[in-house]
Every structure is written in C-alpha cells, then in structure tokens.
C-alpha cells in the first residue's frame, strides 16, 4: 500500500473529529443500505431555520427573472403553440457570487457553533470562495485546497480566477497540481489543524441548497399560481440536483420534473495532466456528473448526502460552444453578464423550451458571477493557445479537448439526452459488486436510490442473479 492509501485509512477517525461528531455508521443497515432521511434530519435544522441562518450571512432570497427577450425569441423559433417560458434564478446575487454560498453557509455556521477554530474545503473554486466568504463573516480561519496547475505550472483562466477569489476573502489557499490526491492533502490538513471539514457532501452542504428549490417553488406558485413544470439544474457532484429537488418537495412541488444538465467533456480524463488544461469548463461537466451519479460515495465523507439519482428525472448534455454562445446571448439580449459555467442549464433550457407547449414553465436555477478568467473570451483565448480549434458550425461536431464549435444561430442550440437507465444500471452494478443476496429492506433502499417507481431494480436483480431475502 502506498503512502496516500495508508494515510487515507485514518479517514474515518479524522472525519469524526472534523465533522462535529456526526456518526455516519449508525445510519447503515444490511450490506449496502443506509437510512438517508434519518441522516439528513439528524443535523436538526428545518428549512425555515436554514433560511434564517443563510440570511445572516448575505445568502439566499436571490431574484428570479422572466427572460422576456429570450422567451420572445424562443416563441419565434418554435412550432405554433410551443415555446415554454423560461425563468432564471439569479444566484450570482449570493455573497460569493454563486449558489455555492448556500452550500457553505450552514457548514460554517455549524463549525462556529461547535467551537472550531477554522474550516477546510476542497473545491474546483466557486465552493472555496463560498466557504472563505462565509468564514470571513463568522470570524473563522479558512483553508482552501484547489486543483490549479498542470506540471508546467499552467492554470486555465477560470481556475486562476476562482483561486484569486478564495484569496480575496482572506483564506490560506493551497493551489495544487493535477491529481485526486487533493483529497489526501485536505485530510492531512484536517488532521494537522483539527478544523471543521466543510465538505460539499455533508447533510449541511445539501440542506443549504434545499432553500434554493424551496424559494423557486414558493415564488413560482405566488406569481403563476402553480409549481414550475421543469427545473433545469447544472449537474456536477450531485448536490445541486439533490438539494434543489428536496427543496421543491418541501415547497409542495413534488410533481415538478428535475432535469440535470452537464457540459459534455466525455473523452477527457479528469486526472490527466495533459487533459487538465484542455477543458474549457472546470465544473458542471460530465467528468464529475457521470461518476458521481454512479458512485456518489467516492467523496471526502463516509456517506455522500448528495444522491442525484434519487431525484433526477432526466439528464441532458450540452457542448462547451453552446454554453459560451448562451452566455454571450444572455448578456446581449437580456442585459445580464454572468459566468459561463453557471449558464450550463440555461443553454439546454432554450432548445428544451422549444419542444414544450407555451403554457409550460421552466426554471433555470442558477447563475454565477463573471470576471477576468471566468468569461467565454478568456476561456476561448486560452483554448486556442492550447491548440484547440474554435469555429462556427454544428455544435454536435464539438470534440472535447480538440474542437469547440459555436452555433451560428440560437436555433442550432441543442442537447443530447443521456440515457438515465444506463446511469441507473451502472449505479446498481457498482453498489451490488460482490453481493448475491439482499434483504427486502435493502431492495426498498435501492429503489429509492434510483427513483424506481416500477420494477426496474427487481428486473436488474433477476438479470444478475441477486436473490431477495424476505
């Protein structure tokens, strides 16, 4: 066993110390199950409590806009009677400029309440800025661990900007070269400092985002007299989908469909030094979206509270060029300039709206701040420098790491539907590795894990020869 693997064995012990004594083991049952709702409610905050805590540190109650010009364009390019209305929740208005403030607020509050000296988070950037911003307000020390450079010391502009922002809030920032050992180094720092683990994947991280879905549900009901038909969510680690969907349910919008959207970066390896700077998106992409849905527990806490397959009704992929196009379109016809990664789900919402009757309501649930580095021009200037071809054409010709194709007209925006069944099967396959018999309680757990209301799981078990023990 290597140095990293050996140190990682200390993880459960360090986690317990750095998560305020939250004992994940008591929620487990059988060989594969755990009581998800009990884990979520164990931290003891109602949605109203969370809303109040967020308000203390300049988070939440962000504005929601009807995108009037864009909606007119969509109507014009749709069949008669089609072209759903798009609403945009402007999450850039949170303290640190993204929805991630919601995710950080409760963790940092909890760290303060429990008497920790500081907080630690690992991140691609927006979350680090959020934790640092919250720590600054609660007078806690903050360490951020971020993957920034390739082996030549080159960082892509979006990542560099996010690192700068963490630094701007007064955090100690560890900027690392490429590799999954980021988790190892965060654990070393947790062990060394005894700070609180402000992981993205604790119940605190997810409870904070529930407020986002809740606000959307309540506000749409107030203004339009009913729940939204669809909420489109940029999907990476799964917390955004999970928290938003749970909040919608809290607001009484159980029937609203929650659709995940990621930027398609299939073919690029996330731990590759070479591929690292050939991605023009550093979050909201398939490199996180697919593996975290298949194996949510590949994270820095014993059980991930982000369980996207429990909530996701569909999964759409868009190309990098389409998101850049949408970002500039938003600025030039809606008059709001926002960061590209935050516009991932908006990019899918436009072609999605064209296929829906005009009385339907779609909510795009986030935006993020923009600035130097975090901008389509910066990203594409850098991409060209890295040898990536940028052209106008059919966005489906996009090849991650080689070619970014920008559509010529809004009509050419599209998406690829990723088959949910494939992800669910991969999840089940992973979860059931080496298992030939499960209990009926575990079957119920699996069905909840993949939002199976029919007999998808039972069929899978039969096919694989896994017995159900009554």
């Amino acid at each position, binding site marked *: 066993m*290597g140095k990293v693997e050996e140190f990682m064995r200390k993880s459960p012990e360090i986690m317990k110390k750095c998560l305020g004594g939250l004992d994940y083991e008591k929620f487990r049952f059988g060989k594969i199950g755990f009581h998800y709702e009990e884990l979520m409610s164990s931290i003891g905050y109602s949605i109203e409590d969370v809303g109040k805590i967020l308000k203390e540190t300049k988070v939440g109650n962000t504005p929601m806009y009807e995108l009037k010009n864009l909606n007119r*364009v969509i109507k014009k390019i749709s069949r008669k009677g089609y072209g759903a209305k798009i609403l945009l929740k402007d999450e850039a208005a949170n303290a640190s400029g993204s929805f991630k403030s919601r995710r950080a607020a409760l963790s940092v509050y909890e760290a303060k309440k429990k008497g920790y000296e500081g907080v630690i988070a690992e991140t691609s950037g927006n979350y680090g800025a959020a934790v640092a911003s919250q720590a600054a307000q609660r007078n806690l020390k903050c360490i951020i661990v971020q993957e920034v450079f390739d082996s030549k010391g080159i960082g892509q502009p979006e990542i560099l900007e996010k690192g700068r922002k963490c630094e701007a809030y007064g955090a100690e*920032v*560890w900027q690392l*070269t490429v590799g*999954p050992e980021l988790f190892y180094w965060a654990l070393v720092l947790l062990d060394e400092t005894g700070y609180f683990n402000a992981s993205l994947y604790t119940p605190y991280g997810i409870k904070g985002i529930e407020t986002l879905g809740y606000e959307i549900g309540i506000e749409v009901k107030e203004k339009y007299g009913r729940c939204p038909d669809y909420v489109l969510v940029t999907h990476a680690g799964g917390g955004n989908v999970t928290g938003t969907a749970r909040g919608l349910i809290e607001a009484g919008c159980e029937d609203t469909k929650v659709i995940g959207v990621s930027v398609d970066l299939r073919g690029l390896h996330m731990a590759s*030094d070479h591929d690292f700077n050939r991605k023009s998106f550093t979050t909201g992409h398939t490199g996180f979206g697919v593996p975290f849905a298949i194996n949510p527990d590949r994270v820095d806490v014993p059980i991930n509270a982000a369980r996207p397959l429990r909530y996701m009704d569909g999964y759409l992929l868009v190309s990098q060029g389409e998101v*850049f196009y949408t970002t*500039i379109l938003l600025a030039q016809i809606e008059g709001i300039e926002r960061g590209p990664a935050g516009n991932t789900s908006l990019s899918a919402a436009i072609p999605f709206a064209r296929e829906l009757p005009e009385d339907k309501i779609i909510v795009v649930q986030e935006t993020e701040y923009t600035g130097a580095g975090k901008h389509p021009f910066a990203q594409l200037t850098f991409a060209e420098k890295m040898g990536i071809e*940028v052209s106008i054409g059919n966005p489906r010709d996009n090849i991650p790491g080689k070619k970014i194709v920008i559509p010529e007209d809004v009509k050419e925006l599209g998406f690829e539907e990723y088959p949910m069944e494939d992800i669910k099967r991969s999840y089940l396959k992973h979860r059931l590795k080496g298992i030939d018999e499960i209990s009926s309680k575990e079957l119920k757990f699996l069905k909840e894990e993949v939002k199976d209301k029919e007999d998808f799981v039972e069929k899978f078990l039969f096919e694989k020869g896994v017995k159900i023990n009554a």
Partner: protein
Amino acid sequence: MVRKGDYVEIKLVLLEPEERAEHLPDDTKNLPFEAKVRGYLLHDANIGDTVEIETPIGRKVKGILLSVSPPYRHNFGKPIRELIDIGKKIRERYLEDKDG
C-alpha cells in the same frame, strides 16, 4: 534579496512520483504532486531558498521561495469573432418587429 514581511509565493512537493496514489493515468503518475501557497516571509531570503512563511490565517508553512507579490495574470482574453455579434444577429432576426 526578499525582505521579511514581503507577500510571497512558495512551492512544496507534497508527494514524490513514487508516493502518488494508485491508478493514475500515465501522464500524471510520473510527476510529483506539488503545491503553491502564499503568505508573509518570516525572514530575509533569496528566490530559490527554502523559507518559512506565515499564511494569511497565521499558520507557518515551509517551502521553496518562488516569487514576491505574484501578479494575477488571468484576464478577459481577446474578443472572439465567433461570439461578439450574437446579440446583434438575434435582434435583427427575431426581435426587431412592430409587435415588440
């Protein structure tokens, strides 16, 4: 000479190539795992020296001195021809009519 109290960046090797995690792609596994950290220099030194800094939260970290007040080099890039006139085209095509 870099002065005590200057805001600097240092570099550390956290893992040598042979210490790195298992199952890394080939182009990553033969490289060291490195970090850069910024803070205030605790003693006079020269670039390339092993030094100690105090980070913005008051912790002490040792590493090789890389630079003083390292500038932010990321920017907005250049205007991208394929993107700059999207709004103009869309307005002409779909928004410039009498009913709006």
